[in-house]
Structure formats: structure tokens, C-alpha cells
């Protein structure tokens, strides 16, 4: 039996929600609302996070292009996905929202350019 406390982030109340994992599923207490209950369940069973990072870009005024995942990915996949993302390299110009990498590490989530970067004027 595992017991964890989840700090709820659904609203500013920041409830400390207790989750006990027993034989019969989850025993959740300390929440004040349905959304809090849902959140605590998700945080224990399959926590998800957005991935944001920067990758190398050439031919622009900047060295780095910010990228963002098209949806949340499993928290445990964050570091493996980042390792992959850090290896990416693109050439300017890049348009915001364009797909830089499809289906990162088999998560089904794409990595998108998080801004538009134009080509730097020559010289």
C-alpha cells in the first residue's frame, strides 16, 4: 500500500490531497471539489506534463528556437523526450506551430516550433 500527498493545482486553494493506493483502487481524501479529485487521481496514476525547451537553429539572429509539445506527455517520459529534443537542429526560417518532430519517443505527441524565426539578413 502506497500513500502519497498531491498538492492540487486546479485552483489557488492548493488543497493537500491524500491518495492511498490499496487493493481496491484509490482512496482519495482532502480535496474540496470534483476537479481536485480528478487531478489527484491523474497525478498518481498517470501524471502528465507539457514539454518546453529550446533547440539549435542556424541561419537566424538567434542560436536557439523555443519548442513546445503539442500536448502533455507522460511525466516519466519527460527526460527521455528532452534528450531527443536536445539533439534536434533546424534551419531558419521556421514558422510558429510547424512540426519539428513527429511522435516524440512514441508518445504520439509532436514537437512544435514555439515562435517564428526569420532568416537573418546576410552579412
Amino acid at each position, binding site marked *: 500500500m502506497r500513500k502519497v500527498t498531491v*498538492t*492540487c*493545482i486546479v*485552483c*489557488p*486553494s*492548493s488543497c493537500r490531497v491524500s491518495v492511498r493506493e490499496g487493493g481496491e483502487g484509490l482512496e482519495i481524501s482532502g480535496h*474540496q471539489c470534483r476537479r481536485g479529485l480528478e487531478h489527484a487521481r491523474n497525478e498518481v496514476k498517470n501524471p502528465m*506534463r*507539457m514539454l*518546453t*525547451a*529550446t533547440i*539549435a537553429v542556424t541561419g537566424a*539572429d*538567434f*542560436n*536557439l528556437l*523555443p519548442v*513546445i509539445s503539442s500536448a502533455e506527455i507522460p*511525466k516519466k517520459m519527460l527526460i527521455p523526450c*528532452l534528450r531527443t529534443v536536445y539533439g534536434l537542429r533546424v534551419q531558419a526560417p521556421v514558422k*510558429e*506551430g510547424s512540426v519539428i518532430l513527429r511522435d516524440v519517443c512514441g508518445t504520439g505527441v509532436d514537437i512544435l516550433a*514555439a*515562435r*517564428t524565426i526569420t532568416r537573418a539578413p546576410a552579412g
Partner: protein
Amino acid sequence: MREVHLDLAVIGGGPAGLAAALEARRQGLEKVAVIERDIELGGILQQCVHDGFGLHRFGRRMSGGQYAQAFIDEVEAGGIMTECRTMVLRVSGDKKIYAVSSHKGMTLYHCRAIILAMGCRERTRNQIFIYGARPSGVLTAGTVQRYINMEGYLPGKKAVILGSGDIGLIMARRMILEGMEVEGVYEVMAHPGGLTRNIVQCLEDYDIPLHLSTTVSQIHGQERLEGVSVARVDQQRRPVKESERYIPCDLLVLAVGLIPETELARGAGIKINPLSNGPEVDQDFATSVPGIFAAGNLVAVFDLVDYVSATGETAAKGAARYLENPKAAHPRAYRVNTGENVSLAVPQIVYEGQAAQDLSLFLRVKQPGPKAALICACAGRELSRKKERFVAPPEMLAAKVPAGTFIGADLLLEIKGE
């Protein structure tokens, strides 16, 4: 000297300025320009690669650059003159702007109206009186963010963060994800300065401890930072010597608050409000100098970018109204006063009469607590009451005066426990 004639000049191409310029065009102003000192529009959003922007406005979680891009695309399509790499040196009370750029030299902008949207800057170690040696390796969070997210350099190996505001928390996670070590986050107040969401997803996810009521009391190291002393603080927020302990580290990140950049505003003779440290504004976000408006974090540090954009739009509507009849006399002015548990209110001035549309009043709570009511009252009469499950200083709150309400006296904003 190059001279340009404008209906409206917006100084600052960050979220407030971009929203203001777009709204000004929607209001029918013809010659609108955004003057930006950086090489591109977007302001500080461009170095905010993390997500969490735009939930209110766009209903999705965007990174800073995405939020900025949405506005930039519209500005570029919308017949707005953009003057990047242009640094405003002076704004005069008669609405002249002097600015320099390397490609155009000095430009004098003759403006019928101006919106100031220069944002804010970070407090430094000197402004919070951290004593000790003066080595390298002591940087503000924004500078660290610039080095890591824009330039691709790591300014240290092992960091201590002072200040648990959102910028400090976001940078804690970023440094971890870039392969640095983060020893902990220290907060002089008894409660965290940032959103719970960031405490959870930036600290707890990575086992970074948060030490409340604790501050950095000394900086050590002749050349490069070698370590810091941290100490618990007493009721007056002074470090308790006996509780001092030494932490070896080579980077101290300061996320200890933001101050509106009011230099140009002061130069134009605009009145500064002592509570917000920004220009004092009325319900249209007009400053004390006729025809000059202010928006965004210059007025008060809003934290939430959606609010910043909203103030830009309010200021633009105000500027458009002003330009219809610049000589129009204002009705009688009333103050927006801060009452129980309110540390700051924006705008500070409202006018007599029936509110033509809903009037947003921004306020910040002093002490955190559950189940509170935001009350806006006028001469003892309650104009609006809004229930909040929980109020905390990190989040700017918004109260409303509904359209049609008659304002005939000073307003009082209060936050009361239920």
C-alpha cells in the same frame, strides 16, 4: 533629424504594447507605431520558453513566444508601423518622442497620443541589501533566463535561488533540465511568492526544497561566487545570526521582485503612484499628463500576461476616446482606495457618472487566506462582491464595477474573510 507624425505611438513592443497597438487600429486610429528597443517585437515573452501563457485569452497553454507570436502576426498584418532597434531617449509632456536607432539616427515623433508600455525590471542584490563580497555568479533570474534560453550558455553549475516568485520557480526547473544542480529555493516571506502550479511542477517534480522565512544573508567569494550564507528571518524579516548556515554554490539567482521602468514617464512629468511604483492612472489608463497613457507592467506588476494585454487594450480605447476630443473636460475624479487586506489598486482614479461598460479594478491581497470576498464599495454602498475560494499575494485579482453603476464618491476595495 527624421520627423514622423503619428496619431498614436506605443513605446514598448511587449504584450501590453502589442495589444494596445492592435486595439488602437480596431478603434480606427490611422497612424499607429510601436517603438521597440530590442531587435524584434515580443518583449520579455521571447525569453519565456515555458508554457502557461494565454489560458484566459486563448484558452490553451502557450509558451511565451507563442503568445507573443499571436499578437506579432496580427500587428504585422494590421498596418501598424513597427520601429524595432529603436531606443526612446526622451518623452516630453507635449507628446514628442525622441528616439535613436543605428539605421535611422535620431527620430522625432510628433504624437497626438502616446501609450507607455516599457514594462518592468528586476530588483538587484543591492536593492534588497544582501551583504558580503561582490563576486561574479550573482545574477537576476531574468538575466539567467536570457543566458540560458536565448544565448545557450549556463551561468553556473550549482545554483541557489532567492525568491519563490514564478520567475524563480520557472528558472529552477529550467536549470535542472539544462543539467545544472539547484540546491534549493529560499523565500524571505512565510508564504511562497509563486503559483502553486509552479511550486508543484517546477520544484516538487524535481525534489527541489523550498525554504520559507529564510533568506540569503551573506555572499562569499573574492572572484567567482563560492557560496552563500542563508538564515531564518525574524518577524521583521531580519536574518537570525544563530540560524545561519553555509551553502557552497557558484550561482545565486535572484528572483526578488520587479519594479516598473518609470524613467521615461518621470521625464515627461507624469505622476508616480507610491503603492504601485508606476504611473498613476485613471479608468482609461490615462496618466496625469493629458494624452499620455500607460499600460502593462509599467503601471503595476501584473504577473498574468492576459491582464497585461487587457490593460493595453483599455489604454488604447482611452487614447481613441481622447483623440476624438482632446480638449474635453473630465467629470469629477474620485480615488480608488485600498481598504482591508488590499495592498495595491489599479487604476487609482475613476470619474463621476454612470459606468459606460464594465470597469475592471485590479488589486493585490496582502495576506493569503481561504474563502474571501472581493468587495468594491462606494460611499458605504456595495457595488460588487466576488467570492474567491482562496486569495494569495502572487495572483493579481480583478474586481468589477458593472456597467451602468453610478459612481458618485471614492471607491473602496476590500478583501474580507467569509
